[in-house]
């Protein structure tokens, strides 16, 4: 029995027409002699009536000053996928195919007790297998699991966090030893660049698990890294396909199966704010502890960092724009005792805020404080080139920086790893930067 796990995202189940198109893909799989196992996300995206964010807003708006309990939020969010799975099973029934909707727990997905971001501990897919055995098409709620607490009756519903439905699909694929897992969305597969920025950007026919995870890490969300990791660990072939077209899509494969290609694509993050600080103002012996304290504070406030840099004169980092107020609030006027016995007071921007002046006055009695200003660059974004073999070759930086300099695009900072090279550029130049790199690296002929 060849099992195929077919996951349909929010846009693929959003309307009756979309659900029918998705369901017909499932019917087609059965006609090819496959046993489809369907995984669905909640219906629609933010702002639409049954989307996960809409359900959360429903609760939060009721009592804006009261933070909902994570357990209650998980129960509420799980409703989106339950509704979606029931509707999808009903759509299949209307097309003449018997189907059964299953919650994550009924599909055997067991997690830890971390509400809102649960980790899958194990999957026993007996419920799914029984459904298949009875000739039913299982329609599993993505994003959900259950936490089985020792000594307590029943099981607690948990949700898997970002990319949860992709993770459900990959996990079920592994547990069922499926022939493949197909992730259906509204684009043809993994593109060499965002088609909004590079119209006609080709669809890659093959990427590696690691490449697709890195692309997601750097801003493009085609397949979640957790799903890629499961696919890689269990050797499950993953496909990214378009519900609404017959394009063959992108196959995600192991490194050993990948065919030669130097550059995978150009990707970009959303809006970033860059912070940098010159620490030469501090004694040399104080610089490491100062930096360690700043990063610890950022960690305590769950700030997600991009483009961290460290040089002889200081360090820098970027954050998503929505996290920038948190960074400003926690760092401005922050007093950091340093190893030499004096104190440093952090200042955000070029001038002292009232809080910085007040703190400096308060700590004066312990000695003259050192004001350490952080420079802030608003309106940045990160454009990245992802490539499997390319980054190890001499001349990569020259090539990429050369393209951007020729286009007179300012580069604030760079960051690279074994499989990517990123440049922090003005947000206003993003479109030109993506297009120039795509063109300059010959990606129009990729695919």
């Amino acid at each position, binding site marked *: 029995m060849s099992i195929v796990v077919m996951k349909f995202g929010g846009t693929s189940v959003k309307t009756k027409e979309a659900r029918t198109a998705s369901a017909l893909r499932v019917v087609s799989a059965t006609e090819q002699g496959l046993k489809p196992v369907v995984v669905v996300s909640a219906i629609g995206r933010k702002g639409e009536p049954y989307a996960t964010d809409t359900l959360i807003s429903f609760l939060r708006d009721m009592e804006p000053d009261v933070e909902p309990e994570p357990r209650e939020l998980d129960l509420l969010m799980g409703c989106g996928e339950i509704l979606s799975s029931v509707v999808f099973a009903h759509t299949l029934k209307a097309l003449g195919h018997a189907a059964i909707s299953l919650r994550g727990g009924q599909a055997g997905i067991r997690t830890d007790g971390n509400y809102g971001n649960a980790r899958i501990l*194990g999957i026993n897919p007996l419920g799914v297998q029984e459904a298949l055995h009875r000739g039913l098409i299982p329609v599993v709620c993505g994003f959900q699991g259950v936490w089985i607490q020792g000594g307590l009756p029943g099981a607690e519903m948990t949700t898997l966090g970002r990319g949860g439905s992709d993770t459900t699909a990959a996990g079920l694929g592994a547990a069922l030893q499926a022939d493949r897992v197909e992730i259906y969305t509204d684009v043809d597969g993994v593109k060499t660049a965002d088609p909004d920025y590079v119209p006609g950007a080709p669809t890659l026919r093959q990427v590696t698990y690691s490449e697709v995870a890195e692309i997601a890490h750097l801003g493009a969300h085609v397949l979640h890294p957790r799903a890629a990791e499961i696919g890689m660990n269990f050797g499950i072939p993953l496909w990214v396909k378009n519900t609404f077209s017959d394009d063959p899509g992108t196959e995600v494969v192991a490194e050993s199966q990948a065919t030669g290609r130097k550059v995978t694509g150009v990707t970009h993050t959303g809006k970033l704010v860059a912070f940098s600080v010159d620490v030469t103002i501090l004694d040399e012996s104080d610089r490491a502890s100062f930096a360690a304290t700043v990063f610890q504070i950022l960690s305590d406030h769950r700030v997600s960092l991009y483009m961290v840099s460290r040089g002889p004169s200081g360090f820098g980092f970027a954050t998503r724009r929505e996290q920038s107020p948190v960074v400003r609030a926690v760092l401005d006027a922050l007093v950091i005792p340093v190893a030499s016995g004096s104190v440093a007071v952090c200042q955000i921007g070029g001038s002292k805020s009232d809080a910085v002046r007040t703190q400096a006055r308060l700590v004066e009695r312990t000695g003259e404080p050192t004001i350490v200003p952080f420079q802030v660059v608003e309106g940045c974004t990160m454009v990245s080139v992802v490539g499997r073999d390319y980054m190890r070759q001499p001349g990569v*930086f020259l090539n990429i920086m050369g393209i951007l300099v020729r286009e007179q695009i300012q580069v604030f900072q760079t960051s690279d790893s074994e499989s990517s090279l990123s440049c922090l550029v003005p947000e206003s130049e993003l479109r030109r930067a993506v297009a120039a790199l795509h063109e300059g690296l010959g990606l129009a002929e990729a695919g």
Partner: protein
Amino acid sequence: MTHPGSPSSQPFRREHARPEEGARAAETKFERERGIDRVEVRKGYATVSVGPFAEPLEQARLDVLRRVAMQQVSVDYLKLDGPRMSFVVAESDLQSLATALEGLEHQSRSGRSVVAIHAANMRDEEGLIAKTISQVMLTGDEVDHIGDMHDRVIFVLDAATADRVRLEVGGRE
């Protein structure tokens, strides 16, 4: 096909049977524990700082990169640092690098290591990258470079400190 009770060659896969064989499914173990799970140290690198440059900086930087590329030297972890730039090369390339940078003001520090601290899905674990950096900074040694990937944070630092980082930051190796 893997049968219940048979050994499995894949580390994550638990044996189980498909339903037509009449066997009940067993549980398959899944995602890695969150947080740091491995620290990897690679030795034999040098940090190079070039500059200060005169304006225009962009052309001066490109000139350095062109010279280095012409000597077939692979550059990693490039950082722009005001009128200077720094990067990391393999120690074995230092001779070629000296040829490439002849006539330019530069310093190199050999005996550096690349330390990769691995953790699954780092971007979604908010605060984890910052926490890892803070932990490494607290080892007290000067860190030349910091970078990140989807599953690791990368540091370039003194080779002697690298082993201490491995011990202190640890993980579940």
